[in-house]
């Protein structure tokens, strides 16, 4: 990159420096929790990598490649969606954003895409290209910032474009520099909610953003922006019409995928590694397929089939492809993805037997009932499991060749002799041990080191024998059910619920139950909930964070 390119880019960024500072200040405010007036926090949420990529594809089309590494998203209270409200951009991260932005801008204004995506150029009636630049900035700015740009903003960026064009020698280069600046701007990188005139809710544009990222996990489309512009989103009918349209769209599946990717922490599969000498069927492409399998199964059951959320734990249907056949030990004759249905009584039943979760919560070379149990407790039951102390002696558990302690259960029981460990292990291990018939990458087995694997246990005072029965108990668990509601709420709001949100959560749980535990109903209720757009959620003083258990009691019939 020639050094002189940086200068105009910085120039393009100059007008945005104040906004960046404002963004940082807002992030600080959010991190501190609700403000003194008792109103909910003014939200600033960073786009996740997936949201960034999807937004670029929606705005500029799939032909524009997003090349570069993103700073990892931060998981807070179990969700990246909550983490997006609590992160800022480091200088290193900003440089990455800047590099990615330049790459995108270069493509958009480059020869291959310029005619389609810029659509104008300097000419006889627009000698320096000012009209073209202003038109482009106005049009693209609306999509990037998810709100109309003020005349001042358009003028400022147009001037920067012309100045950059003069210095760089071409109009396209100038426009590219401006676009790169817009892409690296907080207005794009952060969803900055602005208050409506009433001061009680966010404005229409922020409503459109909240809706779009909740239901589609991407930037608002034209219809939604139009509804924001003409005030339709501020009316119950207009809001309802948009919500119904978005839930009926195939893109709703993307939103549901994004939610479960976050909730089930499926993004972590990107960093998963296994010992292929122990698990030769495993590879990175198999791991990616595992994640895709779970997401396809979820959207098939909960969106396409509109089935009860609780069926996820008992369904015999699972998305499958040839890559996964060896892991699941089944013949796969079809090309591409299809829905495989295991026969009744098969050990593979429900979400708990998905290879993605089983592999994700295991060690590289062996299973881990502790990690699996912890994941079930935290992710599906919204419980908090304390971290282990730093000085734990894992020698017994890790000795997989122990001649007398042949099974993981036996080794864990021996480990429990250490009283300092037993407290937590008694919480996590019983559930994890119920999944022990699935090895470290989720392959079914009945024996370990020649010994039969015991997968019996007790959950919520009911006994189970194996993952399928455990899944049935999860399906009937009101705690698991209300955990989903709570997680969806957190995902939508980008924060933990406060005391003031209790009634909102309870109402949401009731609606969910009344609607037959349908995801569409849950997301519809979330999207139509006035508190979703309110600057003073619940109307109550924000006391301590609402405990999951409290919410559970309130939503339990």
């Amino acid at each position: 990159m020639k050094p002189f390119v940086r200068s105009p880019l910085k120039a393009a960024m100059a007008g945005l420096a104040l906004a960046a500072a404002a963004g940082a200040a807002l992030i600080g405010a959010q991190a501190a929790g609700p403000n003194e007036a008792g109103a909910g926090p003014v939200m600033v949420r960073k786009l996740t990598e997936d949201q960034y990529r999807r937004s670029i594809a929606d705005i500029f089309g799939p032909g524009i490649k997003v090349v570069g590494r993103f700073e990892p998203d931060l998981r807070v209270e179990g969700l990246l969606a909550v983490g997006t409200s609590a992160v800022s951009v480091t200088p290193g991260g900003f440089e990455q954003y800047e590099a990615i932005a330049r790459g995108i801008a270069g493509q958009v204004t480059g020869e291959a895409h310029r005619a389609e995506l810029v659509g104008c150029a300097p000419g006889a009636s627009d000698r320096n290209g000012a009209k073209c630049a202003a038109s482009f900035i106005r049009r693209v700015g609306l999509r990037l910032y998810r709100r109309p740009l003020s005349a001042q903003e358009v003028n400022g960026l147009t001037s920067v474009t012309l100045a950059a064009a003069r210095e760089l020698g071409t109009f396209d280069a100038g426009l590219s520099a401006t676009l790169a600046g817009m892409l690296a701007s907080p207005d794009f990188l952060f969803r900055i909610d602005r208050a409506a005139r009433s001061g009680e809710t966010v404005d229409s544009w922020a409503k459109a953003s909240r809706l779009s990222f909740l239901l589609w996990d991407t930037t608002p489309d034209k219809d939604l922006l139009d509804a924001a512009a003409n005030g339709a989103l501020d009316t119950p009918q207009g809001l309802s019409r948009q919500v119904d349209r978005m839930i009926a769209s195939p893109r709703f599946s993307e939103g549901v995928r994004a939610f479960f990717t976050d909730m089930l922490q499926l993004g972590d599969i990107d960093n998963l590694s296994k010992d292929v000498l122990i698990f030769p069927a495993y590879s990175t492409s198999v791991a990616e397929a595992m994640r895709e399998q779970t997401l396809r199964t979820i959207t098939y059951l909960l969106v396409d089939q509109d089935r009860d959320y609780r069926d996820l734990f008992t369904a015999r249907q699972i998305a499958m492809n040839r890559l996964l056949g060896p892991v699941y030990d089944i013949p796969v004759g079809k090309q591409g993805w299809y829905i495989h249905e295991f026969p009744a009584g098969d050990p593979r039943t429900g979400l708990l037997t998905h290879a993605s979760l089983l592999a994700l919560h295991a060690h590289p070379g062996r299973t881990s009932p502790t990690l699996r149990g912890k994941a079930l407790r935290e992710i599906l039951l919204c419980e908090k499991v304390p971290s282990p102390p730093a000085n734990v002696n894992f020698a017994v558990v890790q000795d997989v060749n122990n001649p007398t302690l042949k099974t993981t259960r036996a080794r864990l029981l021996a480990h429990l002799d250490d009283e300092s460990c037993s407290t937590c292990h008694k919480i996590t291990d019983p559930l994890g041990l119920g999944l022990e018939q699935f090895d470290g990458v989720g392959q079914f087995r009945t024996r370990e080191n020649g010994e039969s694997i015991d997968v019996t246990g007790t959950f919520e005072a009911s006994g189970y024998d194996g993952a399928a029965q455990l899944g049935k108990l999860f399906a009937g668990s009101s705690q698991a059910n209300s955990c989903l509601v709570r997680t969806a709420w957190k995902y939508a709001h980008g924060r933990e619920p406060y005391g003031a949100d209790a009634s909102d959560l309870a109402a949401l749980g009731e609606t969910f139950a009344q609607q037959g535990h349908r995801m569409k109903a849950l997301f519809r209720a979330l999207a139509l909930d006035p508190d979703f757009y309110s600057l003073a959620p619940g109307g109550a003083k924000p006391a301590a964070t609402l405990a999951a258990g409290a919410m559970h009691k309130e939503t339990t019939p």
Partner: protein
Amino acid sequence: MKRHTYWVRAAGIGTLVAAATLLGAADSPTGGEQGVRAFVLSNIYIASSGDAGTCPQMADGGLETYYKLLPPEERAKYASAKDPDKIEQSKRMLLEKDMNEHYGFRRVAIRGGSPGGAVPQAKLPEGFDPNAAPTPQDALAIGALNGFPKGRGRLAFSNLTVAYSSCTNPEDFPELARGFTTYDGKVAPGIDLDGKRSKDDFTGMDGAKGVDNQLWRAVGCVKPFREYGERKVAKKIFISARAPTIVELRGVDDPRNDNDVTVNVYAAADPVVRDGRGEALARASFALDPDKSLRSTTRGRIVDGVLTTDPVDLRLNYKEQIVDAPREFRGARIVARLLPDGSIEGSIYGYYTLESYWSSVEQMTQNGANLTEVSCAGIRQAIERFADGYRDPATGRYTAISSAFDFLGVRAFTIHPEQQASAQ
């Protein structure tokens, strides 16, 4: 563009729904269909006598024989500085060129391109479709059009070329068989195929008498056959991985002991995939090759984990690098051990038909033979001499040779055509 994307996604979801609706009933359970055990074979290789039966002298390859036939002053141009009896490695290509010119070896490409390097395009007979599978008659017609000696020319290099060399027409170059030696040991792998005892029989590796394995007698001192016949070498190699063979057992009530199982041998249409260790991936699914001539069925029994089949004629795909020549065995028996880890190790004992064997030698090409130090002429002479099975009543000549091949395989799933049809 975006609308298009939505519709594509919508169509994808629709396909999933339709597929699920079509299925109606449940699919296969974990472990696959009950009573069925299938294995994909990662390597089928000639069984070696190993250290139990060695060769005092290994057979010379064709190039080595030609080298030894050269007058001393000519030979000196190619001789190794360290050992004048051997060819200097860096001069092998030059010597091969000289050999090709000397004997008039040649080859022409049928489909364009230059398979194997520097192969001119053939003049093709009128009406010949270069994209259709060529026949031996086509090869002769192409040979005639391209200046080959009368009645000469065979398909080679995966049927992409027509060639004339000591591998396609070894009968024209008997002098290249001069350095060839055969196996004269007493021990060889195999079983008693004909139920008779004769002076040519070997003692088996386990001491059994009356073992018929004249193929090993013919080629047991050929360097690459011996090397690739070693189990520890064979375990590291995939042969015909792009068109593997499947052995499928049906009606298995007990994998340790079952006195009646159906044994199907199929050609797979899918390749063997390597797992994370570099070995054959177990429990992968394989569609069957639509060519029904590559399928056989027989009965078998399992005793203490060892499968033994009744005799059956087999036609096994053999597509490896430049070779595309199915191996045909007559009266073949499979003896295999079903291992606790789900894999299989075994042998195919039967009469290898000469026609299919010649085809594999011809496909190898002269260049392939030179690279692996094989004498096509020597092999041809020896096999014709030792052939011992399925005499042609018209000619009185044997059409097959007794043989023993070993194989290695892992658990697999077969996808039968009807399953595939409903899947699509």
